[in-house]
């Protein structure tokens, strides 16, 4: 597990990203639908080559990660870091481990999971989130109501469970896009 980190990791696209100065109105509108903090990133500008899909997918990403109420944002970030580890996406793992740490101030807990895997997690709520995140990521066809029981035991209501499912599903998508369309620069 040593390859995962919360340090900044680079990403180089395998096709030319859109430049803001020469973006078409459709490309600009699609970027505007994406989370404000990320819309000028090289990754989103790469996706802007196809504005139709980015507009919808960017708006979906935005609501999944940032919609108010329901699952706390730190839990969404934690879940997406676990999904990214399960999918082997070093870049996405670093970004979302960092965001989780910023929101939760639980740097040591996150670092331990990055180094040793989520089975060392001792916080019952985070452990339940991590187990379910990995299960739905790797074995979606095998998931049953029994897999939700630990989430319920940790006190999660219907909206929180739905938000968690959305976060996990979103990173089945995000990890594949990120790994396919660009090269992650190896962590030092």
């Amino acid at each position: 597990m040593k390859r995962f980190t919360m340090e900044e990791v680079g990403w180089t696209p395998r096709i030319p990203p859109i430049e803001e100065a020469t973006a078409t109105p459709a490309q600009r509108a699609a970027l505007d639908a994406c989370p404000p903090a990320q819309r000028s990133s090289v990754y989103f500008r790469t996706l802007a080559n196809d504005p139709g899909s980015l507009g919808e997918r960017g708006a979906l990403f935005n609501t999944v990660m940032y919609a108010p109420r329901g699952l706390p944002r730190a839990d969404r970030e934690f879940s997406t870091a676990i999904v990214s580890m399960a999918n082997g996406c070093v870049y996405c793992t670093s970004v979302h481990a960092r965001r989780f740490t910023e929101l939760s101030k639980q740097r040591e807990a996150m670092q331990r999971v990055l180094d040793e895997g989520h089975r060392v997690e001792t916080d019952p709520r985070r452990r339940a989130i991590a187990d379910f995140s990995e299960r739905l990521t790797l074995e979606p066809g095998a998931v049953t109501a029994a897999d939700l029981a630990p989430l319920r035991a940790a006190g999660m209501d219907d909206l929180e469970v739905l938000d968690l499912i959305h976060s996990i599903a979103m990173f089945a998508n995000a990890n594949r896009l990120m790994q396919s369309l660009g090269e992650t620069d190896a962590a030092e």
Partner: protein
Amino acid sequence: MDDLIEDLLGIAPGSPLAELRRRRPEALRHAQGAYRELLMPDDPGNVSHAERAALALRVALRENDAALAKHFRGLLEKAGAQEAIMLAEDLSAAPMEGRLAALLRYADVVAARPAEVSQGTIDSLSAMDLTPRDIVAVTQLVSFVPYQVRLIAGLRAMLEEKTA
């Protein structure tokens, strides 16, 4: 409102799960919107609606989601694209020739082993006269079906929980 996920799961309007999903209206709207934009865009560029449906079918099969696969197969049947169905459903390692076969192999890698995509993989798509826009569209499409698969699986578990 038409919603593919609710059709596939048989979630009835007004049921508790339908009401719950409407507390996240943008997730509902943009998942359906992404599906529409990826499978049947007004301007499909160099990747036809039938090729897109074949790629989606392929990923649904690789992900073992029978209901989703049946839906995408239905799109191809409606378009009379029998040959695309045959190619997409041939999961054997038999060598396949041609443009759709090459796209299906790309879908296989992105769906199951995205870490194996290389610059060479992308360059081979460019060599088939796919533009950067086409390449992003195809990659978005084959990466979006895994979103649908996990959303369906998670919601199915919630349905099961409510009827237990």
